């Protein structure tokens, strides 16, 4: 995540100074090795399969597709979705940015604990989060009971969708900005301070501009998450794009209409991507020479300590303690009916699917990142952009596309674990690409060049020199994919082998039946499985850890 910021502004960085030109020397020419390139193109095509599927379906019945798109309702739908996206994204920044600063640069007590606690809501799936919020803050929820009132104002609609998505996506901004803050060169701040700027001025004139790409990258992920989310908007009954796609397709089996809306959604996300790279282009902060790697000075909070703690506490309370508390409350009620064996097997299956996707995505991300970072050019840029196609689409579209291709092209693989892993991989690939790219960027091509100068072959150089240096980025990418794949629902439902039950499927089944006691335990287990990689992710790059 962190990586996305730096990952996406790589070109300017690399071209700067001798190190950049060295990039061309490493592999002897600007042309990537054919093996690497074909692997990258293959990965990009795979990632673009869902979009290709949509084009195939829409092209099949172009006039009926156009009818859907030109329908006046579609415009309203687009505007509603954009309004929600804008509201959630700005809220996520408003929460994530201060938290990132507090947990990296200040003497906030128990910083490391807060860092993990405030990132943890990321692993609460939006469908669980929305349900928990309704049960806690709904018209006759727990809060109404606690306050002793008959009913609270309705939480449904825009407000509920905004609240849910903001609470469970702000960690995307938090993680991105945190990583950037940790990497920032303290020299600039020191210079500003020594020239008499106050801390506040330094923050707004030196630190904040440098953080812009990271904020943008986090915001981009939040925005993409919002436009492709289905769980929260359907429970909160907010008519967004994904809900409309789902309803169109499920109520009338109107494949063309749903696909046309899906294509619009892809265009929307491409527009977001374009807007992001345009914004990013206007910020170009990097060092031309090597800097120092010493940690930044810690800002004493002084009298702001209490408000800061209150802020962290409040966010943790409503985004983590409240939902998890409700979960535990239910879990205790349902504890007698646990089927331990089934639960263990579901957890094992979740690990297998998410772990597999994480491993494959990390490998493909390395390929794509090398191509994009070391061999920038039109073709590799297309490869990288295509990699995003699967992330912007709702899981259900990805799943249906793979049902379509699976039964026509790869029948022996259909409804196997391999197919499920493949689906999860292409769905979340960009998360890994971002992380790997950014750490690859921090490896000066000079090092590779030196190894090459000693007669090593390019692939050998990459294996023995570069890989160990970017291992952290690869692992971060894998961890992010793992966390997302763990809670993915629609693709898992449609593509898992028959009888292959995961925690997410279990949770979905129990909640559709209204058995919240029974769904609470797998939900908690999901959080437990997700916590260690998240702990590791939040600690990554921590100056004093």
């Amino acid at each position: 995540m962190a990586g996305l910021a730096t990952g996406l502004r790589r070109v300017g960085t690399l071209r700067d100074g001798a190190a950049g030109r060295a990039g061309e020397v490493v592999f002897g020419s600007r042309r990537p090795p054919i093996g690497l390139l074909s692997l990258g193109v293959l990965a990009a095509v795979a990632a673009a399969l869902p979009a290709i599927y949509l084009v195939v379906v829409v092209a099949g019945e172009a006039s009926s597709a156009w009818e859907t798109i030109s329908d006046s309702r579609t415009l309203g739908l687009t505007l509603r979705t954009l309004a929600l996206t804008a509201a959630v994204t700005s809220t996520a920044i408003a929460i994530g940015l201060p938290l990132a600063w507090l947990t990296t640069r200040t003497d906030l007590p128990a910083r490391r604990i807060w860092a993990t606690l405030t990132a943890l809501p990321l692993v609460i799936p939006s469908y669980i989060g929305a349900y928990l919020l309704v049960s806690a803050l709904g018209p006759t929820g727990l809060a109404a009971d606690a306050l002793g009132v008959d009913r609270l104002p309705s939480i449904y609609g825009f407000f509920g969708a905004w609240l849910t998505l903001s609470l469970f996506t702000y960690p995307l901004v938090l993680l991105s900005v945190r990583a950037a803050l940790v990497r920032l060169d303290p020299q600039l701040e020191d210079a500003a301070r020594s020239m008499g700027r106050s801390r506040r001025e330094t923050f707004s004139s030196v630190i904040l501009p440098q953080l812009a790409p990271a904020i943008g990258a986090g915001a981009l992920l939040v925005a993409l998450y919002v436009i492709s989310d289905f769980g929260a908007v359907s429970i909160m009954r907010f008519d967004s794009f994904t809900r409309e796609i789902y309803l169109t397709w499920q109520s009338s089996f109107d494949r063309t209409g749903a696909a046309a809306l899906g294509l619009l959604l892809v265009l929307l996300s491409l527009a977001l991507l374009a807007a992001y790279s345009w914004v990013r282009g206007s910020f170009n902060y990097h060092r031309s020479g090597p800097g120092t790697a010493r940690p930044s000075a810690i800002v004493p909070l002084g009298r702001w300590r209490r408000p800061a703690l209150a802020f962290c506490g409040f966010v943790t309370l409503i985004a983590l303690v409240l939902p998890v508390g409700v979960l535990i409350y239910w879990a205790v009620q349902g504890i007698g009916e646990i089927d331990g064996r089934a639960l263990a097997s579901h957890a094992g299956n979740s690990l297998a699917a998410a772990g597999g996707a994480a491993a494959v995505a990390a490998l493909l991300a390395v390929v794509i990142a090398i191509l994009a970072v070391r061999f920038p050019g039109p073709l590799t840029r297309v490869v990288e952009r295509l990699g995003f196609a699967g992330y912007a689409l709702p899981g259900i579209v990805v799943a249906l596309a793979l049902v379509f291709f699976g039964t026509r092209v790869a029948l022996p693989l259909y409804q196997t674990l391999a197919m499920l892993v493949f689906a999860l991989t292409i769905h979340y690939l960009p998360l890994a690409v971002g992380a790997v790219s950014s750490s690859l960027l921090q490896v000066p091509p000079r090092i590779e060049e030196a190894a090459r100068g000693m007669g090593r072959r390019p692939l050998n150089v990459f294996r023995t020199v570069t890989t160990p240096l970017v291992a952290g980025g690869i692992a971060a990418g894998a961890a992010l994919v793992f966390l997302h794949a763990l809670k993915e629902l629609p693709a898992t439902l449609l593509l898992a082998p028959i009888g292959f039950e995961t925690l997410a499927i279990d949770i979905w089944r129990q909640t559709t039946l209204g058995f919240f006691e029974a769904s609470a335990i797998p939900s908690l287990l999901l959080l437990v499985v997700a916590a260690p990689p998240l702990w590791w992710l939040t600690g990554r790059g921590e100056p004093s850890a």
Partner: protein
Amino acid sequence: MNTPRITSPRFQRRARLGATAIAVAVAALLLAACGSGSDEGGGEAGEPETEGITVYSGRIAPLIGPAIDLYEADVDRDVQVRFGDSAPLAATILEEGDNSPADVFYAQDAGSLGALEDQGMLAPLPKRILREVPPRFRSDDGRWVGITGRSRIIAYNPDAVEASELPDSPLELTGPEWEGRVGWAPSNASLQAYVTALRATEGEEVAREWLEGMVANSTQSYASNVPVRDAIASGEIDVGLINHYYVAEAKSEQGPDYPVDVFFPPDDLGSLINVAGAGVLESSDRKQEGFEFIRFMLSEPVQDYFVESSREYPLAPGIDPPADVVPLNQIPAPEIDLSEISDLEGTLQLLQESGAL
């Protein structure tokens, strides 16, 4: 950027940590894969029967699992079941086309079955199966049959509403006395089937007026029937339009004091009977077994099981309905053919235009 960091011990420690994390993830994957593999192997070793048919089930596992167990014991074969919601499963079968692994589609509503039938994906059922089920509960073309039936009802909270206050027709829920007190699930197939039936019998205008009236009356929308029922129980709303067995289920689980009761409105299709049913896929190469499966679902032990467990109406002749619901023949059900209420697309459009969806 930050060049020296990569050679610092801290960075390398992190890198090693990262590499270890990947190794652990891969190892976990392999272990889990082996684990689930050996589970399957163990199951197969214990039951040396040949592999049976594959059923795509829009009905949930706790409900039809025991019925399938009965069938497996009877034919001594395993059945593979893929669970999901009816409509997504139907759409999945449509995507899968001729290569669908499914032999039987067991749907929660006639609409999904109708969609597959319309696309020519269901095989004609033998007469001996069709004979079992009254014509109004099966397809005209004889490609699917209903297995159990359910009635639309008005569910209400007896603490908030007297039974005598309830209207004889759902159409009256647009009155000012019901403003903000009613819940429904417009995205649910059962409500959509009701709207389709209303359009077919009373005409497009009546249906439109009703929907617009409901929306204008601040009717609360929910994602499905269960949350509507729960909202009635919690007092969030006073009445709701759902199916009869949701209430029966909750009462049998939570006791007779569960604060939701059932009213069968006699007018305007208020107690419309819809079915859960099944068909055999044209693409299946095990059609005979598929037919046998459906026949078995209509046999006495299975029909009795459904009556007992989910309080649904048995559709095969000679089976007693659940004791605690109004018998099928006493429900003022309209003589409407379920095959005729397949125009979901028109209904969806109407729901959207009226703002219900």
